[in-house]
């Protein structure tokens, strides 16, 4: 990647030299990456490669053993809860298993964020929550349901609605399509695209869904052996020589996903 382009685009997330160790196990051994404003950036890697851990470190839920992580220019490592608050209002997180508050309805889940950080009237909070719920494609009456009454796909959309409550500039998605049926998963594909284009959101997602990557990601970083072993667009990575990257892209699923994506590109041309 050319250095001048990197310098010109503001780096929303800037990870340098991150090392993470749990006892004797080394998870990250010098991770560097930069996420630019307005892009859909994906972090991939095999199970146990440390991608979710890295995501948790970026959103200040965990501390790396060494290294620096800057989000919106602010250092996140070692940040206290008070200063993290200002940052937390600027990003939204969608967890792998939705992590909705089980004792609240969907609408209340979204409303809770609004009530915490704004002083809107209760009526306006209800209306804005309904807007977020509708933006993620849920039907209007989904707001009244409890998380335990929703299907997996709907729960993910509800979690997304909550992540979007404060109109963040940055969105983190942790395995957004995990456990979804193909129809719901392709719905998430489209949703990610429309959020990125329509709301100009920078999106960082952790995933191993190749279809999602081919359809939505601008740039992808592959995490292997504790470092970034591949970084680039999907076609670039598909041509890479690195063993870990090849394993990812040239296994049977990898080739099928690539072929399908290429066919679709032909059709839309």
């Amino acid at each position, binding site marked *: 990647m050319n250095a001048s382009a990197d310098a010109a685009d503001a780096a929303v997330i800037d990870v340098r030299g991150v090392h993470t160790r749990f006892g004797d196990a080394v998870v990250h051994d010098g991770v560097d990456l930069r996420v630019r404003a307005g892009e859909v950036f994906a972090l991939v890697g095999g199970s146990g490669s440390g991608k979710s851990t890295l995501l948790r470190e970026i959103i200040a839920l965990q501390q790396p053993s060494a290294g620096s992580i800057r989000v919106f220019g602010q250092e996140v490592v070692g940040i206290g809860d008070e200063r993290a608050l200002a940052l937390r209002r600027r990003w939204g997180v969608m967890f792998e298993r939705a992590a909705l508050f089980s004792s609240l309805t969907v609408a209340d889940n979204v409303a809770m964020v609004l009530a915490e950080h*704004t002083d809107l009237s209760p009526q306006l909070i209800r209306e*804005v929550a309904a807007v977020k719920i509708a*933006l993620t494609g849920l039907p*209007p009456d989904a707001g009244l349901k*409890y998380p335990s009454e929703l299907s997996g796909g709907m729960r993910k959309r509800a979690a997304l609605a909550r992540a*979007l409550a404060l*109109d963040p500039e940055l969105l983190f998605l942790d395995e957004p399509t995990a456990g979804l049926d193909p129809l719901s998963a392709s719905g998430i594909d489209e949703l990610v695209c429309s959020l990125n284009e329509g709301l100009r959101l920078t999106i960082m997602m952790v995933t191993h869904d190749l279809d999602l990557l081919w359809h939505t990601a601008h740039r992808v970083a592959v995490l292997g052996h504790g470092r970034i072993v591949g970084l680039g667009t999907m076609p670039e990575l598909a041509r890479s020589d690195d063993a870990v990257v090849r394993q990812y892209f040239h296994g049977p699923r990898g080739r099928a996903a690539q072929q399908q994506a290429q066919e679709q590109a032909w059709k839309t041309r």
Partner: protein
Amino acid sequence: MAPEGGVELALAPGAPHELRCRGVWSVRTIAELEKRLAGVDWPAGELTVDGSGVTVLDTSGAWLLHRTLAERRAQGAAVRLQGFKAEFAAMLQLLASRSIPLQPPLARTPPWLVRVGQQTSSALLGLWDYLAFVGESALALLAALRHPRRLRWRPILRNVQIAGVDALPITGLLSFLMGIVIAYQGADQLQRFGANIFVVDLVALAMLRELSPLLTAIIVAGRSGSAYTAQIGTMKVTEEIDALRTIGVTPQDVLVLPKVIALVIVMPLLTVYTDVTGVAGGMLMAKLKLGVGYAAFVDRLDEAIQLSSYWTGLAKAPVFALIVALVGCHRGFQVGGSADSVGAQTTVSVVQSIFLVIVTDALFSIVFLWLDL
């Protein structure tokens, strides 16, 4: 300084009325904007909304604008948008296309009488569920007793350790203190009559017949009953109970029986133990306050109590064990889909077990009175 958003209503004579929006329209400014918009004296007829001064528009700001315009349209005004940046116009279009209802659906609470009816019927159903559960467990127990090899000894012994062995310090300490308290409370009265030696009767009979089994049952309900409810309840929320069923194992066999059997083994043993520590506490206080020596205490003990005093206390223990274990497990299965529910059912479990234990204790007293024990 907080960013400012603003509206201006320009009334140009003879020209369509213009609403000029400027500044920041975001979730942080719409509270203020809503108030200003509410104060606008809307003219009838055409309305042009000029957005060239809008610097920031997020979905919340777009919603406020969309709602305001929809209200104007509902009043018969013809609304036209102009001057918005392309991405803002696109966002407004996005909101319009989603047909978001202007009034979000509200949960309806049913009227008072309906709720009374619902609660009564659910209470009765609850009673029925209890009976069903006790029945299922009894059947499972009979089946297990007929094929003792199928009993799962590991979980039983593990529960014996957790509910019994681990409870020794706390039950010992509490009954020791209870013995001290009884002896102390009786001391004044007994001294008045010079009847110091009868402190032995007081402590021994109270402890062995009533307090020891009751105290043990209450502590076990708090320690183990609540743990059973929380464990089974969490398993219900994470679908582990369903997983057990799908692999052909009845949850009763794996979850309920080991706990019931373990408690039935443990509670009588704990009761004997607390009998001893309770009396020991009384013995200490008797020596300290009443001057009754240890040897005299033990001598008197032989005359003060009969075998029946010991057995009437001990006989209650297995019954209490059944109550605590069954209520604890049943409440666990009643847990619904949320974290709140685990907490709520755990509370109910402890309260109900203690309540039933004390009621049963009273019944036992009546029965023993009848039988002259």
